[in-house]
C-alpha cells in the first residue's frame, strides 16, 4: 500500500512496482490534471510538485513517493481563489490549447518559490523541460513574470 499526502489530503492506494507516479495520480486518484504528452519524459506536461519541487511524474515510480507530499494542478487554487500563477496565465494569454499548462504552472511554482524575482533568462532556462506547441512561449514568460510580481506584492502586504 502506498501512503502519501496529495493536495493536503492523506491518501493510500495500491500500486504495482512498475506504476509511475503519473498513473497513480490519474488512474488511482482521478487527478487527471497531470497530463501525459509523451512517452519519453521530455514534454513536462505531467509535472507535479514532490515536497515542493517540480518533478516529471512519469519519471518517478509511485512507490518512491511513500510519505511525501504531492501537489498537482488540482491542489493549487486555495478556497476557490485561483493561484496567482493560474490567474496570470489567464490574464496574459499564457495558454492556448492548455495541454502543457498544468506542467508549466507547477514548474513555475517551483521557480518562484526559490526566486521570487527571476530574470526572463532565468524563466526561460527553467522552462527547458516543458514543451508548448501553441504559444511560442513569450506569453508564458510574461505570465510567470506577472505572477512573480503578484506574489511579491502579496508577500509585501
Amino acid at each position, binding site marked *: 500500500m502506498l501512503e502519501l499526502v496529495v493536495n493536503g489530503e492523506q491518501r493510500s492506494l495500491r500500486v*504495482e*512496482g*512498475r506504476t*509511475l507516479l503519473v*498513473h497513480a495520480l490519474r488512474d488511482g486518484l482521478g487527478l487527471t490534471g497531470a497530463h501525459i504528452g509523451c*512517452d*519519453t*519524459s521530455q514534454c*513536462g506536461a505531467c*509535472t507535479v510538485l*514532490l515536497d515542493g*519541487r*517540480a*518533478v*516529471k511524474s*512519469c*519519471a*518517478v*515510480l509511485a*512507490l*518512491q513517493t*511513500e510519505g511525501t507530499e504531492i501537489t498537482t494542478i488540482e491542489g493549487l487554487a486555495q478556497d476557490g481563489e485561483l493561484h496567482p500563477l493560474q490567474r496570470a496565465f489567464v490574464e496574459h494569454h499564457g495558454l492556448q490549447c492548455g495541454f502543457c499548462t498544468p506542467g508549466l504552472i507547477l*514548474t513555475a511554482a*517551483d*521557480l518562484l518559490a526559490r526566486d521570487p524575482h527571476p530574470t526572463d533568462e532565468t524563466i526561460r*532556462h*527553467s*522552462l*527547458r*523541460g*516543458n514543451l508548448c506547441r501553441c504559444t511560442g512561449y513569450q506569453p508564458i514568460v510574461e505570465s510567470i513574470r506577472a505572477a512573480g510580481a503578484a506574489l511579491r506584492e502579496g508577500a509585501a502586504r
Partner: protein
Amino acid sequence: MIPAPVRYVRASDVEHALSLLAEPDAKLVAGGQSLIPVMKLRIARPSVVVDISRLGLSGVEIRGAELHLGPLTTWDELLGAPELRRPALAAIAECARGIGDLQVRNRGTVGGSLAHADPASDMPAVLLTLGATLALQSPTGARVVPLEDFVVGPFTTVLDAREIITDVVVPLPATGSGSAYVSVEHPASGFALAGAAALTGPDGGRVAVTGVAAQPFLIGGDDPEKALQAAEIFGDRFAPAEYRRELAAVVARRAVELATARAKEDA
C-alpha cells in the same frame, strides 16, 4: 508507456542494497532520471528495482584537502552548494546548471549519472579534469577507482553487478586554480554535441571533453587541439565526426580561457 512488471524494494542501508543486488537483473534506482525513461521504453527490464534514494549518501562537504560529493547529491543541490563557489571548483555548478532541465535537476544524481555512463553526459568531463576518484562498496569489500579507469565504454563501467558508489572524492586544486565547463548542446535533447571542462593553475592544466567519443576523456592541457586531431571522434546524423572535432576544439579553448580568467581571481 508503462514499464514491464518489476518488483520494488526500498533499501534500508548499503548492506541491504548490496544483498538485494544478488538477484539477477536487479537494478539500483535513485533519482531514476536515466533508468525510468529506459524502463518505460522497455530497453531496461530489471527483475527488481532497489531504491537507494533514501540512504542519505548525499551532500557536498570539504574535509581537509578533499571535496566529497555524496553520490545521491542531486544536480540542484550542487547548484546551491556554497562549498563550490570558488574559482577552482566553479566548473561543477556551471556544468550542473546545464544538465537536463529543472525537473531532472531536482531528481537526478551525480552517482546515477556516473554509473549510467552516457557518452554525452556532462559531469564526467568536469570530474575527470578535477581528478575525481570513486569509492565503491561490494559485499566482499571496498575499493577506490579513479574516474579515468571507471568508465570503459558507452554505458559501460567497471562497476560490478553487486557494487555501489558510496563517495565521489575530488582533491582540492592548489590555490590560484580555476575551472570551467563549456558545451554546445543539441537544441532538442540538450545533450552535448561537444563539451569541455578545463582546470588551470599552478599545478598545470587539464582538459577533458565529452559528447564526441565513446566516453568522456582527458586530452591534457598543453595543446587540446593537437590532442583532438589524434583522437577517435564519432559522428552521427546531428554532427559528423569532423564537425564534432572542430566543435570540441572550440569549447576546449573557451573552457581553458574561462578557467584561466577564474584562476586569476583566485590568485
